[in-house]
C-alpha cells in the first residue's frame, strides 16, 4: 500500500478571531489534521493575493484564509475586503488550472475553536483527494502553454 499523501496547507489567521480560535482549539485539546501551518496576520485584509501565490509557488497544496465573521471584524470591515479579493483570486487560480478547493475562506470567531478545527480537517481531506499541487506543471506548463521549467531556470540564471 502506498503512503497516504499528506498535503501542506498554509493558514493565514487573523490575530483577533481565527488565530485565537486556533489557540482555543489547542487549549481545548481538539485534535485535528496537523497539515495546516498557521501564519499570523493582524487582519485577513492584510492577505495580499501575492502571499497566496507565493505559498503555492513554494510548495503549499492549499491555502486557507481565516478571519472574523462578516460584521465582526476587529477592524470594522477588513474581512469584507478579503472576501472581494478571495473570489477574484479564486477565479484567477481556476483559469490557471488550480482547483477551487485549494484556496478556501473560513470565518471563525475567537470562541469557535471547533469551527476552525473542523474546517482544517475538511480542507485537508479535500486537498488530499486533489493530490499534490504541481505548480510548475500546472501553472507554468499546463493549459496549452509550453512546459516552462527550463524557461524559468533560464530566467533565474539570467
Amino acid at each position: 500500500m502506498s503512503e497516504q499523501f499528506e498535503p501542506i496547507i498554509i493558514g493565514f489567521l487573523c490575530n483577533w478571531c481565527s488565530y485565537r480560535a486556533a489557540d482555543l482549539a489547542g487549549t481545548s485539546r481538539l485534535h485535528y489534521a496537523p497539515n495546516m501551518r498557521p501564519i499570523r496576520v493582524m487582519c485577513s485584509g492584510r492577505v495580499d493575493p501575492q502571499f497566496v501565490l507565493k505559498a503555492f509557488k513554494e510548495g503549499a497544496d492549499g491555502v486557507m484564509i481565516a478571519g472574523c465573521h462578516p460584521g465582526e471584524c476587529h477592524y470594522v470591515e477588513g474581512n469584507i475586503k478579503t472576501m472581494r479579493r478571495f473570489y477574484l483570486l479564486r477565479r484567477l487560480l481556476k483559469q490557471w488550472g488550480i482547483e477551487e478547493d485549494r484556496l478556501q475562506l473560513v470565518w471563525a470567531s475567537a470562541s469557535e475553536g471547533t469551527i476552525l478545527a473542523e474546517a482544517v480537517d475538511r480542507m485537508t481531506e479535500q486537498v488530499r483527494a486533489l493530490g499534490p499541487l504541481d505548480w510548475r506543471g500546472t501553472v507554468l506548463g499546463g493549459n496549452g502553454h509550453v512546459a516552462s521549467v527550463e524557461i524559468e531556470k533560464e530566467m533565474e540564471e539570467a
Partner: protein
Amino acid sequence: MSEKVGVYVCHCGTNIAKTVDVEEVARWAGTQENVEVSRDDKFMCSSLGQELIVEDIKEKGLTRVVVASCSPHMHEKTFRGACERAGMNPYLFEMANIREHDSWTTDDRDAATLKAMALVKGAVDRVVWQQPLDPIPVEINPNTLIVGGGIAGIAAALELANAGNHVYLVEREPSIGGHMAQLDKTFPTLDCSACILTPKMVDVGQHPNITLLTYSEVEEVNGYLGQFNITVRKKARYVNEEHCTGCGICIEKCPFTVVDEVFEAGLGNRKIIYRPFPQAVPKYPVIDTENCVYFQRGKCKACQIFCPTTPNSIDYEQEDEILELEVGNIILATGFDLFDTTQIPQYGYKRFDNVFTSLEFERMVNASGPTNGKIVLRDMETEPESVVIIHCVGSRDENYHKYCSNVCCMYSLKFAHLVHERLPGAEVYNCYIDIRTPGKGYEEFYNRLLEEGTHFIRGKVAEVSDVARTEEEEGKLIVQVADTLISKQRRLPVDMVILSPAIEARHDSKEVSLRFGMGCDFEGFFVERHPKLDPVATMTEGIFIAGACQGPKDVPATVSQGAAAAARVASLISQGTVMMEPIRASIVAESCSGCRICNNLCPYNAIVFHDDTNVSEVITALCQGCGTCVAACPSAAINGAHFTNDQVMSQLEGLLWDAQAQLDLVAAE
C-alpha cells in the same frame, strides 16, 4: 540578510515535549541559516529560561531571538521583556506557537515534530527581516464610560469615582438599580436586596464625580484606548430635571394605569407618568408616550396641571438630547435577560394562571411589590397550600441553553425558605437536576432548607398539566416528574408552580458588541480576554466587562467584577500614558503613484490625500494597523510595520521549507 538568531524551544513541562521531539527540533534549528545558538529548555517562561535569552544576547551578541513555545497571546510580552532587559529592541523577537497550534492538537509525534520544525523555520526566516520599532505613546483621558446601571455598573462607578475619576454612567431604563432592585431577599444571608442596594444608588446619584445619564443609550463609539468619542442619546423624559423636585404628585394625579411589564414583571401596574419604583435614582419620573392620553389624543395634561413647581416641570415639547462624550476607557455592565418560559409550552406558563416565573415571584414576595409581599395565586387573594419550584428551565438543556445559569439553585432554595416563612403550613417541592451550591455559606443554606422540610425531588419535570386523574388532583396543577432517586414517576398536585428560567445574554448583546468593537460568544455573552487570568478585560484595549453580560453570576461575583474592572481602568488612568503596539501603516511618498485606491479602503479614515504633492499619507494616530491598505497598494508603496511583505514572504518560505526541498528534488530529477 545575515543575523545572529537565538532559537529557544520550550518543553512546557510535558505539554509540548509529549508530542513534539523538542530536542530534535532544537538540534535541527541549530543547523539552519542565520541561527547562532539553539537550545531547548523545560520552561522558557521561567526566570531561568528568560535568563538564558538575556545571557546569550549579551555574551553571544545575538541580534534576533525566536522562542518556540505557546501562543504569543500568552507569553509574547514575557519574552519581549527579556530581550529588552538585555538591550535588544523587543520587536526583533518572534514567537513560534508549537503548543496551542501543534502539540495540543494531535497525538502524531512525527507530524507534530515536522510541523514544529516548519513553524520554527518560518519564525527564523521572518525574524531576520524584522525591524526595531518603538511603541507609540497614547494619553489616557481620565474619564470613563460605564454602560449599565445595575449592581455591576454601580460598583464600578463608585470605585472609580471615589478614587477621584470622573464617570459617565449610562443606563437605558429611567432608574439605575438593574435586576437587583427587583429582588426581595438575597441568598444565603437573606439581606433585604433593596436595603443593601439603595444606599449605593443614592451614592451614585449624589456623587460629584459621577454624571448619571439614565433613560439614555450609547449610539456610537469611535476612537481607541485612551481616546474614545461616544455619542449618547438621552431620551426625552418630558420632565424638566432642573425644576422637578421628585415630589410624585404628577404620578399620583395621573388618571391612567397600565401593566408594568418591566419592573413588576407584568404582575403589577404603574401609572403612565411613572418612576419604576419608589427609591428610583434619579427621582424624576418619565412619561410613557405610547400610552399617554395627551400624547395620543391631545387631551388630559393632568400631570402638568397638578405639577406644583414653578416653572412647571412637565415639558411636553422636550426632545431627545444627543450628547458627545470623551472618555479614555469603557466598562460594559449590561446585565442579562431571562429565558422566555413560553418556549417550553409543556411547563404551562401563560397557559395556566398559577404558573409563575421566578421574577414574578420575586416581585410578589417583595414587600413593596404588587401584593405587598403576600404569596398568593393569580387571583391575588388565595394563598397556595402547595408550591413546586422547577429548576433549570431552559438551562442545562440541549434544546435551549447547554450551560448552567449559576444562580437558580440558590434562589430556588431562597424561594422555598420564603414560602415556609410566610405560609408555615404549605408544602414546598424543589424539582432539580443537581443542586449546585458552590459559594460561601451556600451549602449551609441548603442544609437549612432540608431541615425546614422542603421536599427535594431529583428529576427533570416532564410537564405541568391541569388534567386530573384522581379526586385529589381536581382543580390542581399536576407536575409530572421522574423521581430518579427512587426510580418512580410522580405526580404532584399543587396550587402554584414557579419556574426558574435560564439567564440569557441580553437580546441585543450582539449589536452592542459590534458597536463597541469587541466580541461575544455563541450565546451572546461578552468574551473576556482570558477566562482565568484576565476575566474583565476584552480583546479590545480600553474596553472592560463586568457582571452577567460576561456570563451568569450572582451578586457577590458581579460586584467583584465591577470593582475589578474599575481597578483595571484606574491603573490605566494613573499611568497617564500607555504604550501601544507600533503596528501601523506608512506610505513611502516616493513610491506612491497617487492612485488613491487605499483612501477608501481604510475603515478609520486614516489615509489623507495631498492634492499638492499628489500622494497619500497615513495619519499614524488614527491608523489601527490592520494592513488592508498595505495588501491593496498596486505600487507596494505602503509599509505595514511588523508585517512587511518581506517578513511575510520569508516566513512563508520557512514554513514551506520541506515542500520546497521536495520541489527542488523533483525538478532535479
